[in-house]
């Protein structure tokens, strides 16, 4: 899925799958939301939201920047542009203890290397042996506490059988565990993942079982191809809708942000 038509678009308003994913994720954010932004794809989506329909959104990064308004996408979550445009810059212990931990922040926006049917997330290792991993990933960062302490969580991740897996190699950040009650049993009081936005569509947890269910597909994507890109038997909503294509404004915002930054 990463071999999409990036960079080879004739019509500048036609979106790549990555762009569609980012725009769809951006739309999940509301104006005036407070949003704890994970590294990578979430930052692009959160800033597109800020530059389009949610100018009052408050973006918070684990580097301690509160209310950052970057003009370009930061390469790292500690970039100077974040500090210079922030309403406040606080220490790293403070951002976690005084701002994230007390459930003060509305939306946690996370990426993933692997995700399972209950939206549990792995960003630690690929492989069955922790001590001898096939691939060593970066690890936790702030994700486990973003997943646990934001009032709700949105995940943005490219969809393939390698990322949407039957069984995580490592649970880095808890989603819905194995279903209802597991978050509470782990001591959490927050809703957890309410939406997973991929480059193929949108998945939302079933209200009863908490298992992810396909509820939307992106334009030009059919349900069968989403099922094929999922490592477990994917449940599909009886009323799958199609996401509206990106507007010119959304695409322009995203592309301007991307100049000079990565993801």
């Amino acid at each position, binding site marked *: 899925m990463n071999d999409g038509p990036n960079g080879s678009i004739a019509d500048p308003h036609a979106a790549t799958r990555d762009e569609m994913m980012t725009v769809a994720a951006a739309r999940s954010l509301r104006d005036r939301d407070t949003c704890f932004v994970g590294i990578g794809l979430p930052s692009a989506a959160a800033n597109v939201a800020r530059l389009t329909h949610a100018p009052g959104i408050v973006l918070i990064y684990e580097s301690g920047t509160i209310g950052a308004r970057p003009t370009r996408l930061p390469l*790292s979550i500690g970039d*100077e542009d974040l*500090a210079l445009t922030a309403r406040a*810059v606080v220490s*790293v212990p403070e951002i976690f203890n005084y701002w994230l931990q007390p459930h003060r922040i509305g939306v946690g926006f996370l990426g993933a290397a692997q995700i399972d049917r209950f939206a549990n997330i792995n960003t630690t290792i690929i492989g069955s042996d922790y001590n001898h*991993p096939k691939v060593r990933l970066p690890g936790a960062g*702030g994700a486990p506490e973003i997943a*646990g302490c934001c009032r709700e969580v949105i995940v943005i991740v490219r969809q393939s059988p390698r990322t949407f897996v039957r069984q995580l190699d490592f649970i880095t950040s808890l989603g819905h565990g194995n279903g209802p009650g597991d978050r509470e049993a782990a001591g959490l009081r927050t809703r957890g993942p309410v939406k997973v936005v991929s480059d193929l569509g949108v998945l939302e947890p079933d209200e009863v079982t908490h298992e992810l269910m396909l509820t939307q597909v992106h334009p030009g994507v059919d349900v069968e191809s989403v099922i094929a890109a999922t490592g477990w038997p994917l449940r599909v909503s009886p009323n799958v809708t199609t996401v509206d294509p990106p507007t010119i404004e959304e695409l322009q915002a995203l592309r301007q942000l991307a100049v000079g930054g990565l993801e």
Partner: protein
Amino acid sequence: MAEIVSLADAVAELVHDGDTVALEGFTHLIPFAAGHEIIRQGRRDLTLVRMTPDLIYDQMIGAGCARRLVFSWGGNPGVGSLHRFRDAVENGWPVPLEIEEHTHAGMANRYVAGASGLPFATVRAYAGSDYLKHAAPNVASITCPFTGEVLTAVAALRPDVSIVHAQQADREGNVQLWGITGVQREAALAAHRALVTVEEIVDKLEPVPGGVVLPTWSLSHVALAPRGAYPSYASGYYSRDNAYYVAWDAISRDRDTFNAWLDEHVLDSQGANR
């Protein structure tokens, strides 16, 4: 009182083989010069501690300084993997690397406990995560004596040496840093010995917005190291060299390319005589 000494003398005196050493700096003010000096002085068997091991720890690990890494996010931000780190974890090259990993909240609070003279800190962290077992014995559950709620305790971090980089010191060794200051104050205060490298030594520290002051009597040594955070940035002095971070991906993928880079840019560098 922190004496102002050369970086080489400071590292020689404060950092010993086998020590637990924390170099902190969250994207900003990463103490690269000090890390390179540790490589040049050939330190071995270090337990390296850092929330976000990035290029400087990739370099120190590749140079064979480390026996163990304690961290919470290891990567080249926005670029990809740390290839020297992965080579050490996956293949034991140049020496095997044990790892102990935590979450950011856990690591930050381990420093807070260390800086506060407490043996542990309490957090709402690691909930439902496999880190609960993999980060043991430094993570445990703890029960609130008032409410009965079960929370997570993390063990204090007390590095033998912490090294941070700051913009300025005065001639008495008082230090000021500003911008994103991360966990540096806590790391410095948690350590048995603290070294601060600085961009500049000034006659008088003028208070600046967002400034964090570390009084001279809370530090061991201060060393002048202009551009000592390069290729990370020092707010007010120089910007991050993003191209260096991107280029590191290719340099670090291959052991020979890395060794050649190490010879040319660290081992043969004039930094040793600074």
